[in-house]
Every structure is written in structure tokens, then in C-alpha cells.
């Protein structure tokens, strides 16, 4: 069971993996530096993992510009932090079958490439190598998922 977490978001710019240059950014909603309430911890972790793959402002060099593409499917990282481990079974509210319903918070963020030479598999490899990632997944019950960019 995941708690619905209210993640504070701000406007940002992302260089999409499908792009073939360093100039065209797409507007996105990215995770804000400041969070309050439930889920702030996991939101902060996810934000940190992709911090160099999202931009709060357009870069000043190279004459970049941004487009607004409604419902653009960015590559997405999603993480779940287990906040409380259940030790007794409780019944599923849907199927009625008893199981250990752990409590957890989850957050997700879109991300793109750092520069034109970057690609999706390199990005994943880099995130998996990050110290913050390793710390996050060390806790049993924390989970992480990646979804590719739509084309």
C-alpha cells in the first residue's frame, strides 16, 4: 500500500532523449527543492538522483529554447520508500485476502539527458552507480522503477 504523497513541483526544462541537439528543451514539472509533509524524504531522494538531468532554468549558453508539449511522455524514474514494515496480516480491501500491508511513500520524476551525447542506457547506468541510489536501495522494501521516454 502506497500513501498518496503530495510532491511539490516546479516548472522545469528537460532535454528529451529523442532530441538530436542541445537546443530544444521541453517544459516539464520537476520536483521542487523544498517539500513539506508526507513523502518529502523520498521526493528529495528522487530529485537528487536526476538533479543533473532536469533544469530549473534554461541554460544560458548555446541559445537554447523551450517548447511546451502537452502530455509529453518523459522518461520517468519512480521510487518507493517503505516507511513502516507490517508484521501482522491485514485483509486486502479489494480481494479480502490477508497479507502484510506495508506502509510506504512514493514519488516520481521525469528526466532527460544532460547533453546531446548522452543516452538513456548511459543515464540509467549512471543513476545505478550513484551513491544516493545505492543507499536508497539498501533498505529492504524500497523499490525503484524506470519507464522509457515515449516516441
Amino acid at each position, binding site marked *: 500500500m502506497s500513501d498518496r504523497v503530495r510532491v511539490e513541483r516546479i516548472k522545469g526544462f528537460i532535454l528529451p532523449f529523442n532530441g538530436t541537439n542541445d537546443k530544444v528543451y521541453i517544459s516539464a514539472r520537476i520536483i521542487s527543492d523544498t517539500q513539506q509533509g508526507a513523502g518529502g524524504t523520498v521526493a528529495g531522494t528522487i530529485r537528487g538522483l536526476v538533479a543533473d538531468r532536469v533544469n530549473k532554468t534554461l541554460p544560458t549558453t548555446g541559445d537554447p529554447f523551450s517548447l511546451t508539449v502537452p*502530455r509529453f511522455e518523459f522518461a520517468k524514474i519512480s521510487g*518507493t520508500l517503505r516507511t513502516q514494515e507490517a508484521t501482522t496480516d491485514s485483509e486486502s480491501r479489494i480481494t479480502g485476502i490477508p497479507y502484510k500491508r506495508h506502509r510506504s511513500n*512514493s514519488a516520481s520524476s521525469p528526466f532527460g539527458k544532460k547533453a546531446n551525447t548522452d543516452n538513456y542506457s548511459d543515464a540509467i547506468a549512471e543513476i545505478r552507480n550513484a551513491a544516493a541510489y545505492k543507499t536508497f*536501495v539498501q533498505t529492504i522494501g524500497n523499490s525503484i522503477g524506470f*519507464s522509457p521516454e515515449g516516441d
Partner: protein
Amino acid sequence: MLWTPEHCRDFLIIEIDPNQSTETEWENMFMLNRASSDWLKGRLDTGTYFDMLDACDINPFEFVGKVETHVNLLTR
């Protein structure tokens, strides 16, 4: 307050616990997240998508059923 995601794909994203997963499970997570996105766009037929879920030990009817219930609730 009802929460509606930007895209239905968000309901179908699969996460794994990397600490307790094999490399195969990791690859399957990528495959299924790609597949769900394609399935929603009609690029992959339902039979194939459900077979892929089943091959990765996920009960497709249970997994997609939960999403269906949620979407029905939102659009009722």
C-alpha cells in the same frame, strides 16, 4: 480530492526492489514499462502484453484490473 495522473502509464509502472532482484528481473522491469506504454498507445496488442506480464510472474488480470477499477472510478 481525486487524483488523476498526467498519463495512464503512471498506473502501470512497475517497480522492483533492486537489492533483492536478479539482473533478469531488472531487465524485465524495463521491458514491461516499455510494453505498458506501447500497449496504451495501441502498438502492442492485449494478448501480447498480458503474455509478457504472465511470463514475468505477474497476474495480468489482477495487475491491469486494479488500474481498470481506478480508471472506472475516475470516469464514472
